């Protein structure tokens, strides 16, 4: 493999990469717009983006390939995931279309658009691929890019930096919540706690119960349930606290109860028989 690589082999290798990843990325893209779960969409988009990163690498753009991974897959898409989780973890979308004719029209427009584009590419006389050997020769790809950015495109570069700053500030302003009360200090919190009805910490979940899952309420000494032991967030998510205080499935609990009952009855019978024996 060392030494000269034949142009034909090069072509074949690229074809293999292309066909595998092209199919994968189109499938992922289609999946992205068709699956219901937003997180799946994001993951499928990540697949597309990583495929594109590979394409960039093949197309002699190593810097862009890694920037694609870091910026798009790493930062942008992660931001998407973050927001998905903020605005609704299990956000699955109803796929029923509400606007009449939207889907059909979208399909028609999409097909027409892509058909026209491909038609255009098919008829266009594309020049023979030059390759970036010469462009990357002097110091490599990174240096070449840097040279262009800081000479020919320096104004655009500065403008984008201003844009980034503006965007960051804008996002901060948009996502900002104005504090309308001063933040309580630890001293204030402790004072409030001492003045409240309960000085001690809340009971942890699962105390005296069969198991200590966070949604399993603690049992008080008299056997009743302590509502305070389960975080209201969890209680709301689960639609109330555990209905079965022993932490078992209903049928298992019934079986368990039956066994216990049988054991008690048997023991009673045994005791009775012993007493009878003694009396005899």
């Amino acid at each position: 493999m060392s030494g000269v690589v034949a142009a034909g082999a090069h072509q074949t290798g690229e074809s293999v990469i292309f066909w595998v990843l092209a199919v994968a990325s189109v499938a992922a893209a289609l999946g992205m717009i068709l699956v219901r779960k937003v997180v799946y969409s994001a993951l499928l988009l990540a697949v597309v983006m990583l495929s594109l990163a590979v394409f960039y690498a093949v197309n002699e753009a190593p810097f862009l390939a890694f920037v694609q991974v870091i910026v798009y897959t790493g930062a942008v898409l992660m931001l998407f995931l973050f927001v998905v989780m903020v605005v609704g973890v299990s956000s699955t979308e109803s796929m029923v279309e509400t606007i009449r004719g939207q889907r059909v029209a979208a399909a028609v427009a999409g097909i027409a658009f892509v058909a026209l584009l491909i038609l255009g590419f098919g008829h266009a006389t594309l020049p023979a691929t030059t390759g970036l050997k010469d462009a990357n020769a002097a110091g490599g790809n990174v240096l070449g890019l840097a040279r262009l950015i800081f000479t020919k495109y320096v104004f655009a570069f500065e403008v984008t930096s201003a844009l980034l700053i503006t965007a960051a500030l804008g996002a901060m302003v948009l996502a900002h919540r104005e504090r309308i009360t001063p933040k309580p200090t630890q001293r204030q919190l402790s004072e409030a706690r001492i003045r409240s009805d309960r000085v001690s910490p809340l009971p942890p979940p699962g105390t005296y119960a069969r198991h200590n899952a966070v949604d399993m309420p603690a049992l008080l000494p008299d056997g009743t349930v302590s509502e305070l032991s389960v975080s209201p967030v969890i209680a709301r998510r689960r639609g109330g606290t555990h209905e079965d205080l022993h932490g078992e499935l209903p049928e298992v609990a019934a079986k368990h109860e039956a066994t216990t009952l049988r054991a008690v009855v048997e023991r009673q019978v045994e005791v009775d028989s012993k007493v009878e024996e003694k009396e005899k």
Partner: protein
Amino acid sequence: MTGHYLVLSAILFTIGGVGVLIRRNAIVIFMCVELMLNATNLAFVSFSRMHGTLDGQIIAFFVMVVAAAEVVVGLAIIMAIFRSRKSSSVDDANLLKY
């Protein structure tokens, strides 16, 4: 070979566009927009290689920067809308109509 990339880019772009049209979740729509941007980036990189200059890569680089800025602001807007309307569906934000 470069023509293949262009066709792939067109297909991905169209898929993104159709996704914008048929999905209601603002976040997914945003993802579709990102897909479209990515598709154009692919075309730029391919052209860059085709013509033997790095300008296409530079443009792709700028597209990424602008996309990052756009995502930051867009997601902040989605958050703000979600905070006040408890919904991230773009069809719910249809006050600006006849």
